């Protein structure tokens, strides 16, 4: 990143563009449950979040073109992903003895 050769106007415009994009996506967040993918609400919400996150990372956090750092971020994210796949996808999904266990089928208090 070179501090001396920046085009102030262009970068500022970039910031505003991204802001508008993010605001739009936030609006989508709100209308989505009534509009589309209502059956897989959770998935839709997370997809929008990922999209937003991607915009923030690339533009606000200047990751575009940062090969090394992007690689590191991917690495960290894939580790988190692996935790999810194993713990949620493999272990909890195959919970043994769910029927007899209190934590899964406790009597509701009210």
């Amino acid at each position, binding site marked *: 990143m070179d501090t001396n050769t920046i085009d102030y106007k262009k970068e500022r415009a970039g910031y505003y563009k991204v802001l508008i994009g993010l605001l739009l996506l936030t609006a989508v967040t709100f209308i989505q449950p009534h509009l589309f993918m209502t059956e897989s609400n959770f998935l839709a919400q997370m997809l929008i979040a990922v999209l937003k996150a991607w915009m923030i990372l690339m533009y606000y956090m200047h990751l575009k073109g940062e090969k090394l750092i992007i690689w590191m971020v991917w690495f960290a994210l894939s580790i988190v992903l692996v935790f999810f796949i194993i713990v949620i996808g493999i272990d909890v999904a195959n919970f*043994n*003895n769910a*029927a*007899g*266990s*209190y*934590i899964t089928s406790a009597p509701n208090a009210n």
Partner: protein
Amino acid sequence: MSNKLEGFSTSASTFNADLDFAFWLHIWLSVGLFLSVVVPMIYFAWKYNANKVKNEDIGKVTHNTTLEILWTLIPVAIMMLFFYYGNTTMKMFRTMPAEAQSLVINVEGSKWKWKYTYPANASGHVHEVGGVYKKPVMNDDGSIKEHGTMGISALYVPKDTNIILKMTAPLSDVLHSYYIPAFRTKQDVVPGRETTLWFNANRVGSYDVECAEYCGADHAYMYSKVVVMEKADYEAWYNSNKGDTPKGDFPKDGKSLYASNGCASCHSIDSDTILVGPGLKGIGAKYDSEYLANALTNPDKDVPEGFYPGIMPTFKFSDEDLKNIVKYMETGK
């Protein structure tokens, strides 16, 4: 009932042969792998020792593709073999037999005792056995001076029958683990969860049970026994309606209840010494019977100063037992 401690190296269930095979197969192959590293190491250290090698003779090898592939692929193959045996033995332990063809017994592990509840027998009686373990006291020559409680706190099962244990711990309790070394099996007991364990014992005898998950002060004394009986003996006991254990009397007076429920590991009955909970000397003078009964069935309600809720387990007694144990606290009898 004898209190001889036994049953570690013994082979007494249908699991043992397979498991021991997997273990020893692994050990012998591993000895091979170990030697494949250590033998050349010692040989080279001797052969190429500094005082035998001239500087000009030092080699320059830094790669050898064949060797490198070999010492990657051969271990991979061996590892897959280990995985296979590890996994099939796990399946053997974990594939529960059909409940209809097995005896299902509920196990509760709590600080620091095991309790077993049998299904109701033909006349509707429910056997409940188990309790805290007390060590036998030995004379110097190794003979037994005072019998412990192993015999009366044991799990009684028939030979050659699939036994399923459904295990859990009280919610306010902690993790334990039900471990029978002679059957090579164990499973953690988790508050809030139900876990299962099964076995099929093929030799009459009694085998030690240990708690293998750390659970506090008396973790090292959370023993029990599995007593394997001939089917006929077992049936005779099971269909009787006495609360006794088959091999000894299980007294139900206050003092025995106090001992077998493990109160003594936390409360001193005849002094003010604080073990885990408060000393109970003279407790009868301080509170009425109702308070004392409540202290057992709902211990987190009135917590004396200087102690925390959640430590004393919640007890469920039959009305009669509750009366007896409260009386014992009040009168010492």
